[in-house]
C-alpha cells in the first residue's frame, strides 16, 4: 500500500511535468529551437496567478485561463521580433539568445517583485481520501486539468487549419514554404501557443510551490530531461517522459534513506546525460530531428 501510494504521488507529479514540458517540446520539434527561457515562462505564469490572487482573490485556475491569451500575445511578439531573426541560423545563436532572454526576464521580475518568495494559498489546499489513498486536492486538480489541456491541444493540432499548418511546418519546412505558407507567421503562432501553455502550467503550480524570480532554470532542465526521455514534439511522449521522471523521483525519495530527496534531484540530470549518451535519439526515438537540418 505505501508503494501504491508513492506510485500515485509520482503519477500526479508526473502529469504536471508532462503538461509543463509541452511548450518546450513543441517549440523544439517545430522550429528546432531549444528554448532556454522555458522555465522563465513558468515563472511568469506563476507571478501572474500570484498577483491576481493577491489583488483580487482570483483563483489560480481561473488565472491559468486568463494568462493564456496574454502570454500568447507575448510569445507571438517575442518570436516575431527576436527569435524569427535567428531561427534559420545555427543553434549556437538561438541558444545564446534565449539564454540572454531568460536571464533578462528573471531579473526584470526580480526588479518588479524583489527576490522574496511568494506563495498562493487557496482555501481548498489539503487532501481527500479515495479508496484508501490520500489525494492532494490541488495536485489532483492539476493532473486532470493537464490531461484535459493535452486532449484539447491534440484536437487543435489534428483538426484546425492552424494546427495542421504547424504540423506541416514541423514535418517539412521547405515543402510548407513551397505551398505558400508564411512560415514565420506559423512559427510566431506556435511560439504564442507554447508560451501560453507554459505560463498556464506556471499559474497552476503557483498554489503548490513557492514563487521566486529564479525558479525557472530548474524547470528548464527538467523539461530537457523529460523531452530526452519521452521524445520531441509529441503529446504522448511528453506525458510518458513526465510520468517516468515523476515516479522515479518520488520512489527514490521514499526508498533511499537519508538522502533520497537529493538523489531524486540529481537523478533527473544523470538520467538526462545517460539517455543522451546512450540513446541520443531519446527513449522513444523522439529526439530524432524531423528534418535534416532542423
Amino acid at each position, binding site marked *: 500500500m*505505501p508503494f501504491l*501510494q*508513492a506510485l500515485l*504521488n*509520482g503519477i500526479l*507529479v508526473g502529469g504536471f511535468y508532462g503538461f509543463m514540458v509541452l511548450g518546450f517540446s513543441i517549440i523544439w520539434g517545430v522550429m528546432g529551437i531549444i528554448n532556454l527561457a522555458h522555465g522563465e515562462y513558468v515563472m511568469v505564469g506563476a507571478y501572474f496567478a500570484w498577483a491576481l490572487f493577491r489583488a483580487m482573490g482570483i483563483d489560480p485556475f481561473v488565472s491559468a485561463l486568463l494568462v493564456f491569451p496574454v502570454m500568447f500575445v507575448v510569445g507571438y511578439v517575442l518570436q516575431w521580433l527576436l527569435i524569427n531573426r535567428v531561427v534559420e541560423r545555427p543553434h549556437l545563436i538561438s541558444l545564446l539568445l534565449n539564454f540572454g532572454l531568460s536571464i533578462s526576464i528573471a531579473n526584470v521580475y526580480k526588479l518588479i517583485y*524583489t*527576490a*522574496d*518568495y*511568494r*506563495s498562493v*494559498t487557496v482555501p481548498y*489546499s*489539503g*487532501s481527500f481520501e479515495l479508496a484508501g489513498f*490520500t489525494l*492532494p*486536492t*490541488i*495536485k489532483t486538480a492539476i493532473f486532470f486539468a493537464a490531461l484535459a489541456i493535452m486532449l484539447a491541444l491534440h484536437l487543435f493540432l489534428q483538426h484546425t487549419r492552424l494546427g495542421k499548418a504547424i504540423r506541416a511546418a514541423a514535418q517539412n519546412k521547405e515543402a510548407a514554404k513551397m505551398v505558400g505558407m508564411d512560415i514565420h507567421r506559423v512559427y510566431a503562432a506556435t511560439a504564442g501557443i507554447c508560451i501560453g501553455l507554459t505560463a498556464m502550467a506556471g499559474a497552476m503550480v503557483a498554489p*503548490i*510551490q*513557492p514563487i*521566486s524570480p529564479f*525558479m525557472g532554470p*530548474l524547470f528548464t532542465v527538467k523539461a530537457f530531461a523529460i523531452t530526452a526521455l519521452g521524445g520531441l514534439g509529441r503529446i504522448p511522449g511528453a506525458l510518458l517522459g513526465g510520468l517516468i521522471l515523476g515516479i522515479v*523521483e*518520488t*520512489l527514490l*525519495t*521514499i526508498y533511499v*534513506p*537519508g*538522502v*533520497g*530527496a*537529493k538523489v*531524486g*534531484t*540529481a537523478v533527473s540530470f544523470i538520467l538526462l546525460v545517460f539517455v543522451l549518451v546512450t540513446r541520443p535519439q531519446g527513449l522513444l526515438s523522439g529526439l530524432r530531428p524531423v528534418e535534416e537540418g532542423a
Partner: protein
Amino acid sequence: MRRYPLLFTVLLIAALVLVACPAPATAPATGGQEAAQPAAGGQEAAQAQEEMPKVIRIGAAVSETGRYAREGGDTRQGYILWMEWVNNEYGGIKVGDERYQVELILYDDESNPDTVTRLTEKLITEDKVQFLLGPYSSGLTKAASAISEKYQIIMVEGNGASDSLFERGFQYLFAVLTPASRYTQSGLKALADAGARSAVIAYKDSPFPKSVAQGAEQWAQEYGMEVLAVESYPADINDATALMAKFKELDPDVFVGAGHFVDGVLLARNAEEVDFTPKAFMLTVGPSNPEFVEELGKTSEQIIGPTQWERNMAWEGPYLGTAEEYAQRYEKRWGEPPTYQAAESTATALALQIAIEMAGTLETDAVRQALLDMDVVTFYGPINFDETGKNLAKPMGAIQIQDGQILVIAPEEAAVADLVYPMTPWKER
C-alpha cells in the same frame, strides 16, 4: 592581426593604471555609503576628521542583491538603525572621556563569495576600518572572517549561526546569536514536557540547517524522544510530498524541519497535502516571520518555530530599552516590523559598542578582551561570549502561531502563551 592586440594592450594598461592609481577608482555600491558623516573618501574625510568630533570607522559587506537580498536588507537596516541611534541620540560611543561618532561603511557583496572577499579586503586596507560587522549567511561570514582574522581585525557578527564557524580557532570573530545547534533546544524541551516521545527531522543540506538538525537530534534524545528518521533534502527542492509521505508512515509525535523560509512554506504545504499530521510541527526559519502566516493562512496555525528574538520577549537592557521599544523604534524608522535578523544585527553592533566602552580604548586586543569578559543583558537578550566567540548565554526562544499571532511559548522566562499540543489535524481546520 595588428589592431586588436593593440587595443587589448591599451585596455589592459588602462585597467592596471586604474587599479594602481591612488584616487578611489571603485565606486562604492549604490547607497553603499550610509555614513552619518558626509565625507567618505579622499581629502574631504581627512578635513572632516580635523573639524568634526572623533570618528570610529566600522565596515561591513552586506548583501543588497543576489540570493540573500532580503535577509541582507534586514541586516543592513539593523546596522543603520544602531548607527543613527548611537550618533544622534546617544551622542557617540564613549571611549574613556571622549565621544566618538560612528562612520559606518556598508557595501553590497551581491551574495557572491568573490565579492565579499574583495570588499572585506577593501574595507580593511583602503577604508581603514577599525572594526568589522558580519555579512549575512554562514558561508559569506566564513569567507569574510578568514580575512579579518588575518589582519587581526575584530569582526562581530549576528547572521552566521553555523557552529563550524567557531571550530576554526579564530581569535577575532564573535557572534551574538545563539549557534545553530541550539536552535531547537527550548522548543523540544517544551514539547517533551508536554508528552512528545518521538521525532523525525528533515534538513536542507547547507551549513546552517545541518547544524540545526544535528543539534535537534541531540536535544531530542536528551529529552527522552526517539528519533525515528533524519533526512536531508536539496537546497532547490520544489516538491517534498514524497518526503512527507515517508514520514507519515513513521507516525512521529514531532516533526522538525530545518531550512529557510521558502522550504518551510513548502514543507508545511506538502505535509498538509499528504495529510501527514504529527502532534507538533516545528520549522526553523519561517514561523517567526509575519509573512509566513500571511502566505500560508490557516495552514500555518499551531506551527512551532525557534526564534532568536521576538518583540514580545521580556528582555530589557540599558541601551535601546526593551524588546518592544526597540521594535517600535525600528517600525518608526523603516515602516515595517523588525525581523529577528534585523534585531540581531542591531545587537551585533551594540555588542561591539559595549565592548569598546568597556575597554575604554580602540586597541584591538583590549576590545577583544572586553568582548570575552562581557556579560550584559540587552533588548536582544543576554550576551556573554565563550572563548571561541559564541554567545551561549542567550537561550533560544520558541514561538507558536496561534490564531494568526506569533506568540512566545518557551523558554518559560520569556513565554507569553501556553503551548497547544497536540495540534489540530490539518483536515479539521
